């Protein structure tokens, strides 16, 4: 019996079209637009000005708070503008625009493909370097990694879990890096184990990635401290809380964090980035993006410089596809719709998905038939139909009793609803309202 989480979950068609397409290095174009909001928390403060010359790896943004991160130049050239520009949701975010001139890297960055296995740095040095390299969680939430690797006082990590579940349909970025750079991922995992001061970890991979599992198991023989666990295919297995339950059987308490049950979860992409930062001195300036969708002919896995715009990718695949009606950054379940194609690729961008009108069109909402499918599907054990009803009546106190704050916004309820009720749309709004009310209360 393969391991999985026990409550809820859905089984969307996985559509991993690009699973067998090797990662291609996307050419560097004339300009990049690097957003200062590459991570969760406060956007970085730009430290370059118009006219400055930068090399790949130069710091262009410094953290503006505890939960924030460094941003580095992903190309070499001249800074042509430091100004607010629209991000993929049309909101203004500070961007640094760099006109490309050649491809000159900082001298300390080791660009050879040799694998460096010895971990020389101490725990503190590792954490410091991860911070300086601007590494963020590449699973989607882009939470600064150094914060996650420093458990708050009084809490102790027992296990590290490397998340290779990649349960989102279409996306194959993690699958590809596990096949192509498995040893680097294990070394990255070892570095993180050292940073946490623990001995044991797991790598969770869903069963549908056969080649990646074989490759990781093979490489894993040399790294007994990180055990590869094969998981049953079920969405949202890649969710932190679901993955912890699937692998360790522990359930993260309501309003708690994984560290409360002694677990730290990191994406395999993050492990690779950590390896490159610690062993190769390379900050996070590249991102593996799956460009996919049934409406395009050239579905590919691309290794892009951070700051390449979506329109530049579209130009490279031959313009906007005819049938494309919706662009999504990330997977179809939790990805964000791209309303502005001039927005750029961020560190945490895992996919650029194009869907046709037929695939995205929402059907007309009809009455709830009390079939309870949403309850069955919710991986957090909530009752989405009830949350929807209470939300429409704005009964925030009752919503709090129903633990709306536990919602992970995975979209299983919306996916499964036969009446096409926009459950998640409505729940998300009242979740924000309820958490706002809870935060505004004086702390005891």
């Amino acid at each position, binding site marked *: 019996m393969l391991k999985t989480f026990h409550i809820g979950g859905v089984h969307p068609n996985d559509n991993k079209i690009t699973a067998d397409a090797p990662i291609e290095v996307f050419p560097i174009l004339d300009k990049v637009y690097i957003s200062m909001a590459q991570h969760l928390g406060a956007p970085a403060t730009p430290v370059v000005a118009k006219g400055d010359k930068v090399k790949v790896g130069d710091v262009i943004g410094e953290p503006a708070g505890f939960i924030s991160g460094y941003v580095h130049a992903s190309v070499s050239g001249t800074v042509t503008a430091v100004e607010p520009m629209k991000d993929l*949701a*049309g909101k203004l975010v500070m961007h640094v625009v760099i006109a490309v001139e050649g491809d000159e890297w900082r001298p300390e960055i080791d660009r050879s493909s040799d694998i460096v296995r010895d971990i020389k740095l101490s725990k503190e040095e590792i954490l410091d370097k991860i911070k300086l390299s601007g590494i963020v969680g590449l699973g989607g939430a882009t939470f600064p990694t150094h914060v996650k690797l420093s458990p708050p006082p009084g809490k102790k990590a027992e296990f590290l879990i490397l998340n290779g579940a990649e349960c989102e349909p279409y996306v194959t970025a993690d699958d590809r890096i596990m096949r192509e750079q498995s040893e680097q991922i294990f070394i990255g995992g070892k570095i993180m184990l050292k940073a946490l001061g623990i001995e044991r970890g797991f790598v969770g991979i869903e069963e549908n990635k056969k080649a990646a599992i074989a490759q990781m198991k093979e490489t894993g023989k040399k790294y007994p401290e990180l055990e590869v666990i094969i998981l049953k295919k079920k969405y949202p297995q890649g969710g932190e809380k679901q993955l912890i339950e699937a692998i360790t059987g522990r359930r993260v308490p309501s309003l708690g964090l994984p560290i409360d049950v002694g677990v730290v979860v990191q994406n395999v992409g993050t492990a690779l980035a950590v390896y490159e930062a610690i062993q190769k001195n390379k900050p996070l300036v590249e991102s593996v993006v799956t460009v996919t969708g049934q409406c395009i002919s050239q579905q590919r896995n691309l290794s892009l410089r951070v700051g390449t715009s979506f329109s530049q990718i579209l130009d490279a695949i031959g313009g906007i596809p005819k049938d494309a009606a919706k662009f999504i950054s990330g997977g179809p379940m939790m990805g964000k719709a791209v*309303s502005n194609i001039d927005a750029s690729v961020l560190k945490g961008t895992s996919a650029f998905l194009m869907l046709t009108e037929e695939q995205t069109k929402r059907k007309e909402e009809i009455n709830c038939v009390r079939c309870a499918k949403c309850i069955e599907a919710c991986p957090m054990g909530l009752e989405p139909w009830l949350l929807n009803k209470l939300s429409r009546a704005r009964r925030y106190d009752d919503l709090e009793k129903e633990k709306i704050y536990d919602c992970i916004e995975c979209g299983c309820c919306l996916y499964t609803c036969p009446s096409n009720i926009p459950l998640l*749309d*409505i729940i998300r709004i009242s979740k924000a309202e309820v958490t706002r009310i809870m935060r505004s209360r004086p702390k005891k």
Partner: protein
Amino acid sequence: MSIVLFTIICLSVIGLLLAIILYVVSKKFHVEEDPRIEIVEALLPGANCGGCGFTGCHAFAQSAVESPSLDGHFCPVGGNDTMAKVASALGQEVKVQQKMVAVVRCNGTFDNREKSNYFDGYKSCKVALSLYAGETNCRYGCAGFGDCVEVCAFDAIHVDPKTGIPEVDQDKCTACGACVKACPQSLIELRAAGPKNRRVCVSCRNMDKGALTRKACKVGCIGCGKCAKVCPFGAIKIENNLAYIDFNLCKLCKKCVDECPTGAIEAVNFPIKVPKSATTLETPQTQAPQPKVATPIEQKENNSKE
């Protein structure tokens, strides 16, 4: 037959017993309440809309009776008439307040503001705007899904399907402020209705720099400050690239309307100016100065015809 009789007797006895219990309880646990509260409450509209700032009409009446003066008590729905009645019932005085009306400060109609994308999710402004900046390039403008329409208890606001912007029915609007709270873009403001319902207002909330605003909308306020300079009463302030007209200072001279380069300032319900030379040429029907809701565009067109 006996079953029917038995049932009737049973129910009557239960009913009687319960009536006695209710009577005893209501006598025993009677709460002394100021009888004036009931009188004042009867004078109020009973909409329980919360526009006065209290939780409902009863709470308003209670507070009005208990507080020494009527300052801070104003029923926007009933208006000055109701307040005069309340004041006379309580033997107090109340200041006459000017009539207010809800004003939607966005003129980003389909013609003025091009759509850059379509929102496919749940049709609610709050939902759409929590996800992204909206269907157009203006991130401050009206989303047009009608969250304000939903909360209006008086059927006074409707989204015009031709423009996509909510229109307020002045006669029905009671200025309760429900739509003001509902609008996630804070576009709706309660403004003085003005003499003969005439008023001047900056119909824009875009705080971006001029160039960005221009790209997003034809009639956006670019914060150029021309209106503030031309205003003889100092009623216009420019803050964050946006002009705001203080309706308490505005004397409706309309100088700013003529000065505004983008047409962001809207003058409402003024009779359309007909130049003297044109009067003699045009037929009498068209030039009758009917008060009409005039958008700046119509006025500009009129001016250009001169």
